[in-house]
């Protein structure tokens, strides 16, 4: 089977599998990095960079195999889903700034360090954007009409 004949969903599945693998690699790396040598850290960084580059390549192959309506759905969904998802985030940020007595949320299992609060905030943004994109994408394919 030539590369050009591989269905788009297979590229997406490969990208998802790579993301899971990369997440696992980063998890292992973070747990051993404190006692690791400089060479081992460099090796982990190289492996991460290589897998990330592979992920970008898979994403490009997936995008090239999509037809124009599917591309339009993705672009529309990222714009509208992403922007609308920011609204509750901004409300949450405003509440946290104006009412510090509520206490900042922390991802379960993380120690209360500044870095982990940043990680929690980043995860909140990522999940909100993905949720907004997912809802918008479903809406485009199932209900949207001119």
């Amino acid at each position: 089977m030539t590369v050009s004949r591989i269905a788009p969903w297979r590229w997406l599945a490969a990208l998802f599998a790579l993301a899971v693998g990369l997440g696992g690699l980063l998890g292992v790396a973070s747990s051993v990095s404190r006692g690791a040598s400089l060479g081992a850290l460099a090796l982990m960084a190289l492996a991460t960079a290589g897998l990330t580059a592979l992920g970008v390549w898979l994403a490009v192959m997936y995008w090239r195999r999509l037809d124009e309506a599917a591309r339009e759905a993705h672009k529309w969904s990222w714009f509208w889903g992403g922007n609308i998802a920011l609204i509750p985030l901004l409300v949450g940020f405003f509440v946290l700034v104006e009412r510090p007595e509520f206490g900042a949320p922390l991802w379960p299992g993380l120690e209360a360090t500044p870095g982990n609060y940043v990680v929690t905030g980043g995860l909140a943004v990522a999940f909100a954007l993905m949720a907004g994109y997912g809802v918008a994408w479903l809406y485009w394919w199932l209900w949207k009409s001119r």
Partner: protein
Amino acid sequence: MKNRLKVLRAERDWSQADLAGALGVSRQTVNALETGRYDPSLPLAFRIARVFSLPIESIFLDTETT
């Protein structure tokens, strides 16, 4: 933009998959075109016209002038 894709397809007894194959797009794209969710690009509009052997104006209705 309204179009007559579904009518033209039915006249030729084609399924959405048949038309999708002829146009080189997915069946979901044909569905999106027929339900008005998506307007085709110029290259795709010309391909549609070639497949049906009709001018583009007789397939896609310019709602701004009607």
